[in-house]
Each structure stands twice: as C-alpha cells, then as structure tokens.
C-alpha cells in the first residue's frame, strides 16, 4: 500500500494522516466562516442597515481557501484512503465549481460522486470556449465564466468533459472541434503543480478523446513525464527536512493530475490496457517516480468507473 511509499519518502504515516485531518478540519472551519458571513449579510439586509453587502473579495477568499484546503487534504488522503480522498475531492470540486473554476468540475468528475451531472453547464462552457477560439460567433447569450479565460481552466474543462461518459458522449462534436483547433495544441503555458506545458495536457486530452491505436501508450508516456518532473521536485523538497517531514512542504505527494488522467484512461481504454501501458513506463523509471505513479495508480484503480 501507499504508506510503504510514504515511508520510503521519509514521511511518517501519522504526520500524513494529521495533515489530511488538519486540512479537512480547516476547510470545515472556512465553510463555517462562510455561513456566518452569509447570515450576517442577510441579517443586515433585513434590518435595513447602512452596512453594505459582504465584501465579495472576502467571500471569494474564504471559499477559495476552503476549496484549496479540501483539495490538499484529498491529496494527502489519496496516499492512504482513496474513498476519503474522493469525498474531499468532491467537496473541493463543488466549492471551486461554484466559483466558476473548471478545475472544480475536473475534481468532481474524478471523485465520481456527482449525482446530477450538469450537462448544460458543460455545454455552456464549451460554447464559451468555442467562441473564444473563434469557432462560434460571439453572442450575448454566451456567458463565459471569468476563470475560463485562463488556459489552465480550459485544460481542466477538457479533462472533465472527457472524464465524464455522459458529457463525452453528448457533447462529442463540440469537444472534438475544440480539441483539434485550440492554440493550446502547441501551447507552452504551465499547468498544474509541476508547471507542465499545456500542450502535454492537450495531447493527453486528445488521446483520451479519440482513443486511437497507441493512445493508452501515449497517455502513459505523458503521465510518466509528469511523474519524473514531480520526482525531481520531491527530491529537492526532501532536502528541506524540517518542512518535508512535517508535511509542510510546498510540494505534493499525491498528484491529482496523474491520478485523474490515469483514472480517465482506465475508463476510456479499460483497466488492463491502461495498467499495461503504465507498467511499461514504470519499469523504465527511477524509484521515486515509480512510487509517485503507483500512488496515483492505486487511487485511479480504486475509482468506480461509469461506462462510456
């Protein structure tokens, strides 16, 4: 199990559990703060006070803080309790989604706890993206959530759509068109914790979507590259023993991009094909990179998959 990997990376199981618990409880504290803030606002509105509505920036900061805390708690939980990680990812994803972040949709797809998948919202976002790329005429009825102007959110929107069988099926024309014509196919904008160039995400998304021959191997190749990059970051971070051993380093062990891509790959290509392709890559990899991939893969394999 993954605790073995954590110990090999000089992380004590108890410290990792404490970090996950702390971040989980901190996220709850923020949600509580948010509720207090909302109730204060409604009270002042009712009493006709001269105090204005709650500062939008304040509300945003608390909600984004909560979402980030749950997301980081999930990244720790991913190393030892995949079911809990999924609960936390769903919480984080829901809060991010409310803020208009496609990253939130990606997390919710990854958590696979979404009961009423908002296909219309995905359609709205894809239409918005199509209009940004000039594939559709801009019109007043296309409202693009502000965060979607950022390439990083666009990459996560692609993964979220492809990771959801219903969306991938119902909106496949739109998806295919955007994937093929986006400037991000050649883009170098950094995405994710390791600053991976967006072109890599785009190639992954395209391979997952098109499912052509050799696509699983291509995805595995990209995941391996991400693991190598993360392994180097971990190695450097480990030299700061004080922060590393206290789970206070600014480098993640549980990688939700790798885990998510592997999970979507299993859904698209089947467990055997994806595992085989990743195993092939892991054989060529150093210890650290292999452990990081195994942690991600353990999570991906434990994720229940809907049929495409």
């Amino acid at each position, binding site marked *: 199990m993954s605790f073995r990997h954590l110990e090999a990376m000089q992380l004590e199981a108890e410290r990792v559990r404490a970090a996950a618990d702390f971040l989980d409880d901190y996220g709850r504290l923020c949600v509580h703060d948010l509720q207090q803030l909302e109730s204060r606002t409604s009270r002042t509105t009712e009493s006709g006070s001269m105090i204005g509505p709650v500062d939008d920036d304040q509300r945003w900061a608390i909600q*984004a*803080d909560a979402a*980030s805390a749950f997301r980081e708690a999930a990244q720790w939980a991913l190393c030892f309790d995949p079911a809990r990680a999924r609960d936390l990812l769903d919480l984080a994803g829901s809060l991010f989604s409310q803020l208009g972040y496609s990253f939130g949709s990606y997390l919710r797809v990854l958590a696979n706890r979404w009961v009423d998948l908002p296909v219309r919202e995905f359609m709205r976002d894809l239409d918005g993206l199509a209009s940004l790329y000039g594939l559709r005429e801009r019109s007043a009825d296309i409202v693009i959530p502000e965060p979607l102007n*950022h390439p990083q959110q666009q990459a996560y929107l692609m993964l979220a759509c492809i990771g959801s069988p219903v969306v991938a099926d119902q909106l496949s024309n739109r998806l295919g068109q955007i994937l093929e014509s986006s400037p991000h196919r050649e883009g170098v904008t950094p995405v994710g914790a390791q*600053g991976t160039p967006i072109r890599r995400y785009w190639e992954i998304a395209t391979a997952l979507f098109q499912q052509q021959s050799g696509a699983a191997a291509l995805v595995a190749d990209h995941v391996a590259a991400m693991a190598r990059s993360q392994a180097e970051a971990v190695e*450097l971070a480990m*030299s700061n*023993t004080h922060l590393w051993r206290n789970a206070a380093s*600014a480098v993640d062990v549980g990688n939700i991009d790798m885990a998510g891509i592997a999970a979507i790959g299993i859904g698209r290509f089947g467990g055997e094909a994806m595992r085989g392709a990743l195993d092939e890559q892991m054989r060529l990899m150093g210890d650290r990179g292999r452990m990081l991939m195994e942690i991600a893969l353990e999570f991906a394999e434990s994720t229940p998959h809907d049929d495409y």
Partner: protein
Amino acid sequence: MIIQWCIKGLNLDDDAAARDIVDCRGGILCNWWRTVGRIDTALRRERLTSANLNVHVNHFTVIDPSCGKPFSTMTPFISLSAGTVERDAAARTNLVHRARRTALWFGTEFGRRSIAFLYLCWVVLAPRQAVEIEGVGEEVRDLNTYRRYSAFQTEGEVVAKIWIPDNQIRACEKWTWDRSAHRLALDWCHPNQRFTPPERLSNVRELL
C-alpha cells in the same frame, strides 16, 4: 515600501506566556535571541546574510557551522505567513491559502499539539531583496526552484529580522484543534492595547 499584514503561529507553554508577548512589550523575538538571551549589535549584521536566509528557508534544521548548533535555534530570521489570495493567480494554480492556515499548522507543531497561538502583525517589506537591512522584512518566494507553482508564487511567505516590536502586533489569538471532534476553533482573542496601526506610515496626506 510595502506594508504587509502577516500571521505568526507559535506553540507556547500556556496562555500567560502567549499574552506576555504583547503585555510585557517584548514582541516576537528570533530564535537566536531567545536561545542566547542577549544579542550583540555588531553580530546582527554578521548574521543577516543571504546565505543565512537561504539556510533559514531551505535547510532550517542543519547544524550551523559557525557555532555548531542547529541553525533553527540560531536563526536571526522570523518566518511569517502572508497567504496567497490573488484571483488571477488562483485561476492559474487552483490554489489559494490564507495566512491563518499555515500559521495554524506551524503553531500546532504540525498537528502534534492541540493548541496554537497566532499573532496578527504587520511588517514593512522592501520592494527588492535587502537581507542586510534589519528594519525591513523579506519576501522569500524566489529562494528555491521546486516550490509548487513557483511560476505564479506572488506572495505567501515573509521573513522578519531579529524581532517584531510589540506595537506592530494587533492581537494574540488562542486556537484549539480537537482532532477527534473535527473541530478547529478560536478560544479567545487578546487585543494589544499598545498597537500602532500601520496607517501611521501612510504617505497619503489628508486635505485640511
């Protein structure tokens, strides 16, 4: 110059020790001062170096070759958290954290203890690195290559030097983490009666 609000998270023996930091006017001292009891003015200059700042940020627990003691006990710097809450950066990184979170994790000694004391304070930051100037704090975002989203790290970690005067501390808060009950809560807040608001440094002159 930039005036930056920050939080310092500490784990202290009891409530009295926490309140004393503001009530006895001692302020927050660097570990070097706390360890040796009394520090020499000339030595301050010697210890405020870029090399020591690098050790403070990246190798906190190594043995300091100049004295043979752990650097953590002899550092002239004081780590503070400032948080990262910029909207555009958040859309690129999907990561936001307010200063309180980091301060609580450090203050609870990384989850080993149930109590943390937080000090809300302000420091003056230089717009450029100026390690040897004691009166200004430093942003430490550029000191390592591996940090999460380093390309977008706009704020978040600050170090003060030697001490933070008590009148720059607005309040001390006691927080309790009941891990089994999943509850992180503020117990009490002790305002500093001698606090000086940073607006006193403002360069905006009011119209008379």
